[in-house]
């Protein structure tokens, strides 16, 4: 870990300005990912702006009948909120499928969106990695890639976005609210929040330098059966090989987003029209253009099977 300076933010806009003013500065909230990466010098911020003191830890109703989740709401609190459990069950289920109780107590809503990939080559600083060191190459391509991406990847990077919460937020059509260093605010639809790697896999999201997440808003509840099915080798405390977040209505229509396969929660709205016809009809459209590796080609049938399991479960629940 490299030495760094530290300050506590006084307001969201001041925090954004403070990070924008110092190249190499970063925000810190729960620190559950950043500190690990700093110990390995995969992240080496010169300055940390601690946003924990900002009052961004409320869950409030919005005028349009949805919820505004403060950026600092801890995962545990978000998952346990009675409104979330009642109206956005897929979100609660996704959150509790991730990490451990201790980590969820610390991890924040905004920080979870910014969780970096878990590609093992990203973590090993002896290995080339375009995400860690732009231009150095990608050791994962041609290497051990069982856990890695099958779609939306590039010749520069085949890593995945590893989280669960964002997959549920994607199926819920959440919006990320931010404040910029200028003090201006903006609303980023979750679909535009994470980027595909392309030639710049070191940039995970479309946030501008210094731009601070202040909240995530959820639209008015849409009802339906909410399911999050996370597939992994062990029963807990593992990243998804494939996960499916789904909201399925009684008539079989619905929305699905897939985790564990791409640089972002993967959703193809056009494919959802086929949901009433079942997983076999949806999956080819959902995964059109997939480029799996030898190690992870099983994820293609696994997406279809997991989706089929979810649709069967929804049918039983309806």
């Amino acid at each position: 870990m490299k030495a760094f300076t530290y300050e506590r933010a006084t307001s969201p806009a001041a925090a954004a300005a403070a990070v924008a003013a110092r190249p190499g500065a970063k925000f810190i909230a729960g620190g559950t990912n950043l500190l690990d990466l700093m110990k390995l010098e995969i992240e080496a911020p010169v300055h940390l702006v601690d946003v924990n003191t900002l009052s961004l830890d409320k869950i409030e109703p919005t005028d349009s009948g949805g919820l505004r989740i403060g950026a600092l709401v801890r995962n545990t609190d978000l998952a346990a909120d009675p409104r979330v459990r009642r109206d956005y069950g897929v979100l609660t289920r996704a959150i509790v499928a991730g990490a451990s109780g201790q980590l969820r107590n610390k991890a924040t809503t905004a920080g979870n969106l910014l969780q970096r990939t878990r590609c093992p080559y990203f973590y090993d600083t002896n290995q080339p990695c375009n995400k860690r060191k732009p231009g150095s190459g990608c050791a994962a391509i041609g290497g051990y890639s069982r856990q890695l991406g099958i779609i939306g990847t590039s010749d520069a990077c085949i890593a995945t976005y590893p989280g669960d919460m964002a997959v549920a937020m994607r199926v819920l059509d959440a919006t990320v609210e931010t404040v910029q260093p200028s003090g201006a605010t903006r609303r980023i639809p979750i679909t535009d929040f994470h980027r595909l790697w392309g030639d710049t896999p070191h940039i995970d999201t479309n946030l501008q330098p210094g731009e601070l997440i202040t909240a995530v808003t959820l639209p008015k509840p849409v009802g339906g059966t909410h399911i999050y099915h996370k597939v992994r080798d062990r029963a807990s405390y593992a990243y998804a090989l494939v996960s499916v977040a789904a909201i399925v209505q009684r008539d079989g229509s619905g929305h699905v987003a897939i985790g564990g396969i791409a640089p972002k929660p993967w959703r193809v709205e056009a494919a959802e029209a086929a949901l009433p016809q079942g997983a076999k009809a949806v999956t080819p459209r959902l995964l059109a253009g997939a480029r799996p590796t030898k190690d992870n080609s099983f994820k293609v049938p696994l997406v279809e099977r997991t989706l089929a399991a979810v649709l069967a479960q929804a049918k039983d629940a309806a």
Partner: protein
Amino acid sequence: MKFDTPAGQNPIDQLKVVGKPTDRIDGKFKTTGTAPYAYERHDVAPDAAYGYVVGAGIAKGRIAGMDLAAAKAAPGVLTIVTADTAGTLGKGDMNTAKLLGGPAVDHYHQAIALVVAETFEQARAAAALIRVDYARGQGRFDLDEALKTAPLKGDSSGEGSSAPPVDRVGKFEQAFAAAPVQLDAVYETPDQSHAMMEPHASIARWQGDELTLWTSNQMINWGKGDVAKTLGIPKEKVRLISPYIGGGFGGKLFVRADAVLAALGARQAGRPVKVTLQRPLMINNTTHRPATRQRIRLGAGKDGKLVAIAHESGSGDLPGGGPETAVSQTKLLYAGANRLTSMRLAVLDLPEGNAMRAPGEAPGLMALEVAMDEMAEKLGMDPVQFRIINDTQVDPEKPNRKFSQRQLVECLRLGADKFGWAQRSATPRAKRDGAWLVGMGVASGFRNNITMKSGARVGIDRKGQVTVATDMTDIGTGSYTIIAQTAAEMMGVPLDKVTVLLGDSSFPTAAGSGGQWGANSSTAGVYAACMKLREAVAQKLGFNSNDVSFADGKVRSGNRSVPLAQAAGTSGLSAEDSIEFGDLAKKEQQSTFAGHFVEVGVHAYTGEIRIRRMLAVCAAGRILNPKSARSQVIGAMTMGVGAALMEELAVDKRFGFFVNHDLASYEVPVHADIPHQEVIFLDEVDPMSSPMKAKGVGELGLCGVGAAIANAVYNASGVRVREYPVTLDKVIAGSAMIA
């Protein structure tokens, strides 16, 4: 004390303390954080500096240049150890690769430097400033490729299992060719990591030319010798202290880089230095269980009796290393007149392969016991019954040599009864519970019983407190407790009147913890010392030592009775002895047996595999402490779940290293994976094993579990996976989705 005739009646048979389920003496310290582990011994070295290990970034080649300037100039840095500064180092008898590399690099993450600084954070930051230029060499990293030209090689695992390069009985090829029912299959087990909770860690302090190491090591005397050999100093100048160990599983049988580098760092810094191996370094820096490729051929008559058994295993290791002795149990487990076992060893430039809990049997049974399941199906026979009819009461290679105790059939029968085996459908995919396909599997468990010379010193003070001192270790197994139980039984005092001191090389040399020999051997050593002490007490009191009893804190002979405290007198009494084992183990085969039963669910859509319940029935001699023995077995069963379903060190065959080198990516079971476990111990005493009549049990619990799980997955899903771990991708590749 020489143990060369079967044990007769002795004070242990009273079973007033021994044999009772007893809480672990160290349990309360460990659960309250008051058992200091090696890295936490601030009390002994408050001025210790911190070392941070730099691991090689290549698997094979040379260090062309190393720029230390920036690191040396970094805040807090005291010194940097490299091959250049360390002087000539030897290599320990138990080490295959050198613990400090450079300029030659033998494997990935081999230590090449230790940065010593005032704080851990300073050492870590400075280590990142070291620039190393490597000249990459050509390495061999592909086991399957390397096995094509690998020679036959016999060896011992160092933990008990052994086998010659080739072993033949009868005429295997002819018998197999003529057998009406045949199986010929290849099974693969991957490289596995011990992944114990406590990383290797040491604090080193020099006083003149004498070195003290507070460390985490299973085998104190081996360690003492290898530290001395590596550093080129006399063995008497080295003291190892290792009273608490946060898991080892064979990964701490040997001295590793933490101990050697701490010693070198402390010498260079002129003050104590503490070093722990960083978690991401451990997997490639230390040892692992080697991957195997095992071909098994079974031939049987229509009656299900095996007539031909062949088990051929291949594995790889660094030059000078040894094979994984995966065929050893096949020599002893089942009857059959025509037999062939063999091992091949390929040279690989991956990190060092070595012993991990039940080396040999653990991966060997993962293959053999699936083969038995497959063969039973070919025969149309119940897999429990198939094993029972192929039981043998004698060493199949030497039919005039019997087993000292062998209750495999009883384990299987009782297990089948208790587990509800009769409910199992012989046809796969026949049982469903919601979205889950449910299946049951069985496997035999087998692990040899090894005995090792073991010493102890036992004293009584004027208050009647009994103190046992031995360099035996407790790696979380319960050694403290069973040793205290043994001394309490022998000296006729309650458990709280016994103090046990372990893990210090200044104490008498014990068996140490490995190869499931620790419990039986070390308590037998304590028994020997106690017998000597009892004689000393009797002699002092003028009692006839043939007519003396120790009970309730008193020594009695005839109508005379003297409190033990009084007998000890103001200066106390003490005796030291060792148990030395004669050739009883040659006369009769000593082994431990189990029946493992597992029920799994396999998700009908996704192929996800979850354990539903597990049962182990064990026959392993006298169980000294049913509570800690049960803990050992359920821990081992859990490890078997890992081996069966998730543990695999992924080899990058281009760069030659294990890619998933942390606990996020090398998955071991978590609580949610283990819903229900049951353990039954059969009543058994084995007078051939020791005066304790006990045998090992800590590894038996692992042996066979993986196969029982794989067999249950087959029974549930109809998919036979022969490449471990049995993961959902392999299940869905072999099965159509059923809705």
